[in-house]
């Protein structure tokens, strides 16, 4: 299987590190080799936060250099990724918190990720809504493995919330695909 580079980015406190850990746990169930790195500020909330994943590295270099799938949950995270986006990258941005997504020939998908989390009762679940969107679009990890990964990773009282968030993420992709034929080609 070929190499895939993924970045989950936003501001500190949006759960990007946890979302990446869930994805890594899901990929482990499917026997994929990964490298996971991260960057965040020395504060528990705010500031640029990102989690980078190289799945099935072809060179052995563990950090991202050309991102295939980029999730941006806050405008603060846009600039940091500009040099890493390719023409065939897919950039998933939150429609509420990202006013100016990166310009370029790549595919940009703006979705109500945070609003969706709010609708299911907890704005902090936007990370897992995003994970559902990412997985739905990329097919990098099966929904079954991600459901198991959530059960393995998330504190018991938040499991149901996160399972719903994941499902809502997949649903956003389905809704988007039905109105945009180009997206079907991407997936």
């Amino acid at each position, binding site marked *: 299987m070929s190499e895939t580079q993924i970045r989950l980015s936003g501001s500190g406190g949006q759960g990007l590190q946890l979302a990446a850990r869930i994805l890594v746990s899901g990929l482990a169930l499917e026997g994929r*080799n990964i490298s996971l790195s991260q960057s965040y500020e020395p504060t528990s909330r705010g500031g640029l936060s990102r989690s980078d994943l190289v799945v099935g590295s072809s060179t052995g*270099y563990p950090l991202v250099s050309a991102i295939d799938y980029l999730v941006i949950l806050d405008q603060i995270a846009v600039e940091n990724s500009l040099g890493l986006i390719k023409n065939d990258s897919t950039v998933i941005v939150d429609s509420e918190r990202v006013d100016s997504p990166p310009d370029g020939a790549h595919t940009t998908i703006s979705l109500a990720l945070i609003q969706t989390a709010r609708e299911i009762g907890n704005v902090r679940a936007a990370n897992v809504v995003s994970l559902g969107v990412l997985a739905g679009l990329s097919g990098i990890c099966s929904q079954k493995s991600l459901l198991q990964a959530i059960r393995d990773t998330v504190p018991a009282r938040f499991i149901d919330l996160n399972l719903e968030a994941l499902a809502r993420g997949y649903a956003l992709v389905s809704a988007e695909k039905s109105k945009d034929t180009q997206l079907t080609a991407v997936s």
Partner: protein
Amino acid sequence: MSSVQNIQGNHACALAAVAAGCRFYAGYPITPSSEIAERMSVELPAVNGIFVQMEDEIASMGAIIGASMGGAKTMTATSGPGFSLKQENLGYAAATEVPCVIINVMRGGPSTGMPTRPAQGDVMQARWGTHGDHPIIVLTPWSVQEIYQQTLRAFDLSEALRVPVVVLIDEVIGHLVESVDLAKMNTGNPVERKWADSSQEDFQPYAHTEDLVPPMPRPGDGYRTHTTGLTHAENGFPTQDPEVANRVISRLLQKLEHHNDLVECVNQSDCKDAEIVIVAYGITARAAQSAKQQLQGEGVKVGIFRPITLWPFPQQTFSEAIANARLVLVPEMNAGQLIVEIERYRNDSTRIIGLNRYDGEPISPQQIFNKVKEVLQDA
């Protein structure tokens, strides 16, 4: 079933320490090393070991020296600011020849610097941070797997040679999670300290043995011994006699060279025929490796010299490795530290060039690729 697991570098370090037989950890948590302390606090009680969160880094260093003198394999972990505080006691461990392992997960400096950003700014501090001529071993792993292997090795070297060993990790690989198979890497055969078993009557705790490593007196075995940071004669008591001082300090300094076959550890690839040799360590070496593949694809004759044992610097092996190279590139996440050492071993015909970054971001493969193309064009 596969034993491959996704594990963070810092956690791999803690697991290796326990596998090596470490049963005493004292530390003061500091970003980006805190996961080591956190993991040790879970792992050590499970094997009847002792974990102590100390009041500061100075006390932590003192505690691991004391526990080691008591017979335990010991470790502490820190980052730059804490490493500064440990230096005085680190010198004491080197002078009194007390085995101990110090992990430094480097962050941006100077001072408290950039706590969550990577750097390689402690290369010279790891060698010369404490005062006076002293022996010390510094190891620089480049992956999660190698953090595990080199932490195991740190304990073995420390116990075998009675010397403090520093494992110098950059924030990137300390926090990196990689898929590794740790079970395959543990030989399950850690080195044990050489304990004194000679006559107690005329016991010399710092005897000039043939291998230059005197056996340690184990507490409870009945040996009368004296330990001091003052320059001491073979009997352990202070001396300022020039002849004795010269003799005992010389043994201390020759110890590592005498055991160079154990100490030296280098990974080099394609250096022999290389026009340009890249010298790198830690995450920067991973970037160099990636750049090398790209450069070789374009027909550039490039090699990589990676000193896994960074100190003592493998000077002989390095001189041989660059014998045919016109250029040596030294990328480092600092303003130029190892390059100063490398300058000492250059041939007259070799040009040494640095690639430096200290903005809290790692050096990318592309940066190294571009720099090599640039210098080859100039040369």
